[in-house]
């Protein structure tokens, strides 16, 4: 049995809500971070407020929701967060999300590694059959990263986001367990 929590560059870590609160407060000062990740309007968060909100998330964790921090293997730095939320148990489908806080860490392969670890967790530990994600049309870097991870395009909700004076689509992407297994057999 492999170490399911560890990837090549990062590992999944338990959410330390105080540390996450501080990190998130810092990350969200870069509004691009927020706008790439979330659909509701940008706001600023104090470390204390962010920690309280994470505390609430952690308390609501159940078999339905999984919430991890992402720490680098090299220097154990907290660089991002990941969530997995089961949408439908009988369909065994979950929504997945991840973000990397600081732009200095963007484009370095962390996102790909985070996604790989999370998918492996979803398919081999929670025994899901498919994983869904949504991504904004103006986030091509993320879209490419998800395509590489094996996600297929499943359509887009048109003009669902109202930002910066114009409307944007939200893309849906999904990967089935059988597709993921096949892809992984080829790379290993």
């Amino acid at each position, binding site marked *: 049995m492999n170490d399911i929590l560890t990837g090549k560059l990062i590992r999944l870590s338990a959410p330390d809500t105080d540390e996450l609160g501080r990190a998130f407060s810092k990350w969200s000062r870069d509004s691009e971070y927020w706008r790439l990740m979330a659909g509701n309007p940008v706001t600023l968060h104090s470390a204390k407020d962010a920690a309280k909100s994470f505390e609430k998330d952690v308390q609501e964790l159940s078999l339905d929701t999984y919430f991890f921090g992402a720490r680098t293997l090299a220097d154990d730095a907290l660089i991002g967060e990941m969530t997995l939320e089961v949408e*439908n148990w009988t369909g065994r489908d979950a929504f997945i999300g991840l973000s990397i806080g600081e732009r200095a860490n963007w484009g370095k392969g962390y996102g790909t590694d985070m996604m790989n670890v999370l998918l492996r967790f979803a398919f081999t530990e929670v025994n899901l*059959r498919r994983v*869904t994600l949504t991504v904004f049309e103006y986030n091509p870097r993320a879209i490419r990263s998800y395509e590489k991870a094996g996600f297929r395009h499943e359509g887009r909700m048109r003009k669902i986001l109202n930002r910066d004076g114009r409307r944007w689509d939200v893309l849906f992407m999904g990967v089935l367990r059988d597709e993921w297994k096949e892809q992984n057999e080829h790379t290993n």
Partner: protein
Amino acid sequence: MFDIATQLFEGQDIRFGPIDYEKDPEVESRWTHNAGFMRLYEFEPARPMSAAIVKKQYEKLEKKIDEDKNLYHFMIRAKADDRLIGKAVIQRIEWANGNCSVRVGIGSTADQRKGYGTQALKMLLRFAFAELNLFRVSANVAEYNKGAFALMRKFGFVEEVRRRQALEREGRRWDLFVFGLLKDEWVNQVSA
């Protein structure tokens, strides 16, 4: 054109109304004992519910409407005898982006295929676009729900997303579709 006079909640054969705690729980309880209805209206496993459970759900619902302010729930009643025949819901409203999701259900088999769903959706869309001033309306439809597909086509909803094999029922997997209708598309339809 400001159409202030046309009733938002009166249709041809149906009307929208609030929950009637005296009469409605028992009626809705009966619907939930029909596995066929539950499997079309809900994605979760079908469960029958006593009137007591339905009543508690109504209470929680009204509390949620009050607190979250992102949900509208209408009971569909037959104009002729004020009988409860279904529900029409606008949910997951995101005010900043102008979106929502809609659901319509006609509870008993005897009331289906009579055009009530069409009338209800027509009223619901007018409420969403002309009263809530939303920009787009979505609907989630399971591959096995032919009636809902017909309703989507009738109102010009566009098939936007196909979540492959996202549902499993009766021993096979089904796709889950997301449909969307934008305000301009609705306006064009209505004025046509």
